[in-house]
């Protein structure tokens, strides 16, 4: 037991697992932070424009769910900030001056997002309809810019730029080049589109279940159609972007690309493997399309594709099968979601109707889970594919990991806590929706959400005053 603990403490595997699970959890909530406001504002737009009560009700309820998810996301985001230092002091100590810059910008956008989520939640009743709608717009903008900032930090790890080292010490930094490193435009677009797909398909999935159960009223149709449209618009863009990004990875991080596509030796006419497990240099249970990988990389079967034999074994990523299968899963789900969106688009184009056949609704109900799986698989490809480097070709993970013992313990605690947080972030909206369906309007009004306005009973006690303080910041509990 002691020996096992020693091995665990000595290797970066527990730290990597902890970072991976924290990121994998946070990223789902982050998607809602980035994209849910746009979905909600669309519903509100329809509601105001057409005087549609169902759309307005959807928007109001979605804003409450948004509050819960932003609350949990704030916590899991704080965990990540801590973990940057707790797990990777070797990275932050050496390169904090560079990689910290995008994070600082993200702080501003998060602040803005927090302020306007507050205005949006508090403003439902008294603000004029369009003023309230506009108060949500900064959430959409800040969400996207915040995502770009954070992803820029990750891109920098894949494609470090804008710094000079002398004797292993960072001596100068060019903040603009750090932020706009070669990978930023690709990764950031990919992630923002992914956020819209995850949010769109997950929310649509909830209402697809309602439609399947026979709740075919306008409320459920709109609740399905609005988020599904967002996801459906993002899906084809994502598939196109994915193709472009794969070529960028092939040129920028060829070893990662080799692992994604099972390219052992640098050669021409490289086959494209679909599925398959790599064992001792052989691919089992996979189908290969001759020369297709070369065609995808360079539009010609004679394109030379770099294999992982180009670097010594110690610099190749581990778990090649995991990387390849995750990549295939992501691409496969991307096409599945594209097909689903195209089917509905076709039907809408010719019939101006929502598809309500179970053949469509069952996959649509699962589309959100699929989108999450695709996004997680994509992060596995990016992160595991970069191994053994934490900063590509600059710093090894093994040199960045904390020498502190105790990471296996925190890993266990984090996993347990995230199980609870998962229950919260799924359970709370579920409880809310059950209440929305069964209970009287009065009870719905009495419900509280984090950051939400206090219920009526609170103001009944004292003179009707403004809420204690605007949520975000400089007023503490003591209002300015």
């Amino acid at each position, binding site marked *: 037991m002691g020996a096992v603990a020693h091995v665990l403490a000595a290797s970066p595997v527990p730290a990597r697992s902890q970072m991976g699970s924290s990121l994998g959890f946070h990223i789902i909530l982050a998607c809602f932070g980035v994209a849910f406001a746009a979905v909600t504002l669309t519903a509100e737009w329809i509601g105001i424009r*057409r*005087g549609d*009560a169902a759309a*307005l009700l959807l928007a109001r309820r979605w804003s409450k769910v948004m509050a*819960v998810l932003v*609350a949990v996301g704030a*916590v899991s985001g*704080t*965990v990540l*900030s*801590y973990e*940057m230092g*707790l797990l990777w*002091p070797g990275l*932050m*100590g050496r390169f*904090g001056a*560079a990689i*910290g*810059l995008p*994070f*600082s910008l993200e*702080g*501003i956008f*998060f602040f*803005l997002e927090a302020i306007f989520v*507050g*205005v949006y939640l508090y*403003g439902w009743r*008294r603000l004029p309809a369009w003023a309230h709608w506009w108060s949500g717009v900064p959430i959409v903008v800040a969400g996207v810019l915040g995502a770009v900032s954070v992803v820029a930090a990750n891109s920098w790890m894949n494609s470090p730029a804008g710094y000079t080292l002398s004797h292993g010490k*960072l001596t100068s930094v060019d*903040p603009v080049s750090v932020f706009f490193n070669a990978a930023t435009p690709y990764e950031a677009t990919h992630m923002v589109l992914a956020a819209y797909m995850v949010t769109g398909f997950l929310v649509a999935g909830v209402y697809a279940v309602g439609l399947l159960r026979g709740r075919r*009223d306008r409320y459920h149709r709109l609740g399905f159609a609005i988020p599904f449209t967002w996801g459906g618009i993002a899906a084809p863009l994502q598939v196109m972007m994915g193709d472009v990004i794969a070529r960028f990875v092939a040129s920028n991080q060829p070893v990662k690309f080799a692992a994604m596509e099972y390219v052992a030796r640098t050669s021409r006419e490289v086959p494209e493997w679909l599925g398959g497990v790599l064992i001792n240099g052989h691919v089992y249970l996979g189908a290969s399309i001759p020369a297709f990988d070369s065609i995808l990389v360079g*539009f*010609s079967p004679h394109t030379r594709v770099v294999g992982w034999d180009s670097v010594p074994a110690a610099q190749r990523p581990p778990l090649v099968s995991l990387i390849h299968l995750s990549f295939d899963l992501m691409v496969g789900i991307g096409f599945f979601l594209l097909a689903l969106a195209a089917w509905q688009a076709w039907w809408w184009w010719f019939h101006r109707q929502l598809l309500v056949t179970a053949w469509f609704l069952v996959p649509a109900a699962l589309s959100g889970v699929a989108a999450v799986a695709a996004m997680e698989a994509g992060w596995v490809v990016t992160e595991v594919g970069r191994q053994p480097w934490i900063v590509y070709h600059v710093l090894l993970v093994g040199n960045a990991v904390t*020498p502190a*013992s105790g990471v296996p313990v925190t890993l266990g605690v984090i996993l347990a*806590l995230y199980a609870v947080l998962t229950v919260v*972030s799924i359970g709370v909206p579920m409880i809310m929706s059950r209440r929305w369906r069964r209970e009287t309007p009065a009870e*719905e*009004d009495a419900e*509280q*959400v*984090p950051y*939400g306005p*206090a219920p009526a009973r609170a103001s009944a006690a*004292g*003179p009707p*005053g*403004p809420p*204690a*303080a*605007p*949520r*975000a*910041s*400089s007023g*503490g*509990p*003591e209002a300015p």
Partner: protein
Amino acid sequence: MSPSPEAIAVAAILFVVIAAYALFGGADFGGGMWDLLAGRTERGAAPRELIDEAITPVWEANHVWLVFILVLLWTAFPPAFAAIMTALFVPLSLSLLGIVLRGVGFAFRHTAQRLRMQQLTGATFAAASLITPFFMGTVVGAVVTGQVPVHPAGNLLAAWTSPTAILTGFLFVAACAYVSAVFLVLEARQRGHQDLAGYFSRRATAAGVLTGALAGGTLAELSVSAPRVFDRLTGIALPLVAISIAAGIAVLGMLWLRWYHPLGLRATAAIAVAAVVFGWGLAQYPYLFPTSLSLAAGSAPTASLVAELVVAGLAVLLVAPGFALLYFLQQRRLLTAADTDADLRQAAQLGHALPGPAAAAPAPGRTRMATALVLAILAIRAIRDALSSRRRR
């Protein structure tokens, strides 16, 4: 080598943010502690409700300050950040545990009302409010006493379990309880709960006296464990320490005289806390870790420091209008509890839309088919052109 002006500027901003976190985050944590100490369910109902109302709207903001502290530290002073995070792995992990548990308790407690889990989630929230400031205090204590090596080989138990560090932990807890109780007095009065104002006034006085005693004890300890910091605290930083003590006594006097002036009481309590934070900063200058890591040796390249200053400026530029808007809307009483969704529910369930322009009628099938064909042909041509042009290259 003396530190660059940029490094000093960023360090000053860092201490402003720390003071903000001590004040707003501290009040937040303190609220959780008073929730914990409010007694049995029936007896503690009224104070708990007040605490809940006061904390709910501002809960997340306090995380933003903490995140800013972390980001500033790792961008502007990376070696210090890495060393602190390594040597003080244990107390930092425990403070993080507190933050997560608070979040879980907070997010769930409102929804849990009908699940009879409210007590459990409430207790989680309250207990976590105690854990986080205590361990953050031990971290600060370890840094001040110079117990954090520049290149730690692992986590150091001794660094944060010294008498000074433990005392600092208790000092943080007491200070949070004190700040929070002062603010809650005003929150209670604002809502017209005179009895609760008295309730929190008594607690603020007790916590204030305790905080003062602990601060004195910590200072005495520092004279042994960190003589240089002690010398500066009683030397160049003495005015700040004196201001803090004076403000602390003034708050106690105001509470004693029941002179609950909303701005005056808040500002005085804030000064008491902020002055001591700035005093700490001044006492450590010019060291990040007294006396092993100087500000000059531990700061990032100038461009990063300037970038942080720009970011700080941007934060003020972008966030200030946001707050101005919030304040304006709040003053006009436009931000208020939603009355009811009943009208919308009714309209939505009856299924008739309010009058408005109807949805556009679908175009005739043939037109749509033709448009689709044209679009498809255009798309195919575009792709073919793109491919052929690349092949030529």
